[in-house]
C-alpha cells in the first residue's frame, strides 16, 4: 500500500551528456516505480528498459564486486548496485557520473588515466627470490598476511578518486586506490619490487599530493582504507628522504 514511507513512485534525476550535443550536460528526470528493496542501479535499468533506451551507464555483477557501477548519488560517490533508493526518499534521487573524471556519455566516465596509472604501479608480485614450482607454495604467517590483506580487497571501482579533491584539482596525482594497491604489493612478504614502486610514491604526484582529507576511506565500499595506505607511506617516504644520505645506501 503506498504511503509516505513507501511511495508508489520516485523521481530519478540524471545528469545526461551526449558528446554530439554542443550544449553540454543537462538534467533529465523520470518517475520510476518504487519498491523498498530497489537499488539505484535497478532504477537506472528501469529507465533504460522502459522509458529511455539511450540512457548509458556501466554495470555488471550487481553485487558490489566488479566495481563497474560507480556513480554520484546526491553528490556522494556510491556503487549503484549497493545503494538503495529507500535511503534517499522522498527523492528526487540525483545521479551523476563519478566526479573528477571527464564524462564520456551520461554516467560513463573516461577512466583511461586510472588504467594507465594501474599499469605504472606494476600490480603483480615480483618475487624477492625466484622460486621453482617444485619448491611448493609460498608460506605466510597470519601476521604477514595482515600487513597487506585489507589493501588487496580493492575492486578498482574508483569511488575514492571521485571522493578525492586533490585528484580533482590535479589529475597527475597517483590517487588513493592505486597507492593502496601499490602498498598491497610493497607490504607482501613475497614481493621484492618495493624500490621501483616507491620511486612513484616518493614523487610530488605520489603521496605528497595528499592532504589527508580522508574522504576516500569513507566512501570505499570494501573498507580498503586507502587514506591509511597513502599516509603510512608519507611517514615511510619522509624517513627515507633522510635515510638515503646514510652510508651503505645506494
Amino acid at each position: 500500500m503506498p504511503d509516505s514511507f513507501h511511495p508508489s513512485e520516485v523521481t530519478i534525476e540524471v545528469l545526461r551528456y551526449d558528446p554530439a550535443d554542443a550544449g553540454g550536460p543537462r538534467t533529465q528526470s523520470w518517475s520510476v516505480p518504487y519498491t523498498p528493496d530497489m537499488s539505484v542501479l535497478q532504477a537506472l535499468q528501469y529507465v533504460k528498459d522502459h522509458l529511455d533506451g539511450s540512457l548509458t551507464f556501466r554495470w555488471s555483477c550487481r553485487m558490489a564486486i566488479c566495481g563497474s557501477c560507480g556513480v554520484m548519488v546526491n553528490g556522494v560517490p556510491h556503487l549503484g548496485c549497493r545503494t538503495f533508493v529507500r535511503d534517499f526518499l522522498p527523492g528526487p534521487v540525483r545521479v551523476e557520473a563519478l566526479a573528477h573524471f571527464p564524462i564520456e556519455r551520461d554516467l560513463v566516465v573516461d577512466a583511461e588515466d586510472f588504467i594507465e596509472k594501474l599499469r605504472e604501479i606494476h600490480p603483480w608480485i615480483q618475487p624477492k627470490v625466484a622460486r621453482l614450482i617444485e619448491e611448493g607454495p609460498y608460506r605466510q604467517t597470519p601476521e604477514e598476511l595482515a600487513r597487506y590483506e585489507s589493501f588487496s580487497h580493492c575492486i578498482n571501482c574508483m569511488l575514492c578518486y571521485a571522493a578525492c579533491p586533490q585528484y580533482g584539482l590535479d589529475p597527475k596525482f597517483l590517487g588513493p586506490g592505486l597507492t593502496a594497491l601499490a602498498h598491497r604489493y610493497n607490504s607482501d612478504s613475497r614481493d621484492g619490487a618495493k624500490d621501483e614502486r616507491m620511486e612513484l610514491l616518493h614523487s610530488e604526484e605520489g603521496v605528497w599530493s595528499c592532504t589527508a582529507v580522508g574522504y576516500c576511506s569513507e566512501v570505499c565500499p570494501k573498507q580498503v582504507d586507502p587514506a591509511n595506505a597513502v599516509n603510512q607511506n608519507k611517514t615511510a617516504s619522509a624517513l627515507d628522504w633522510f635515510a638515503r644520505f646514510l652510508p651503505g645506501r645506494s
Partner: protein
Amino acid sequence: MRPRSNQPVFWLLFGAGGMLSALVGVALVFMTGIAAPLGLEPRAVMSYGDLHAFTRNWAGKAFVFAVISLFAWHGAHRIYHTLHDLGVPTGFAAKLACYGTALLVTIIAAEALLKIGF
C-alpha cells in the same frame, strides 16, 4: 627517474608543530591569553621576572623556541596546501611567502631568545 619531492622536510616540521600544538596549545592559550591577563590561576605565569628567569636557561629557551617556531612551520605548510585547495596558484612565490615567513619567525625568535642571555 621521477624526481623526489622535497615536501618531507616541511611535512615533518608540520607534523612536529601539529603534535606540539595539539598537546599544549589549549593550555598555553589559556595561560597566556586568558588566565594571566584576567588574574586567574595559574597566576603570575607572565610576570617579567619569572618569564625572564625561565628564558635565561637553555630548557626555557628551547621550550619557547620550539613552540614559536614549530607552530609557525605547522601553519606555513598547512596554509600553503590550503591555498592550493582554494585554487590559488602555488608556485615558488607561494612557497616563499609561506615557508619564508616561518623561517623568518624562527630566526627572529632565536635572535630574541639569545639576546635575553643566560
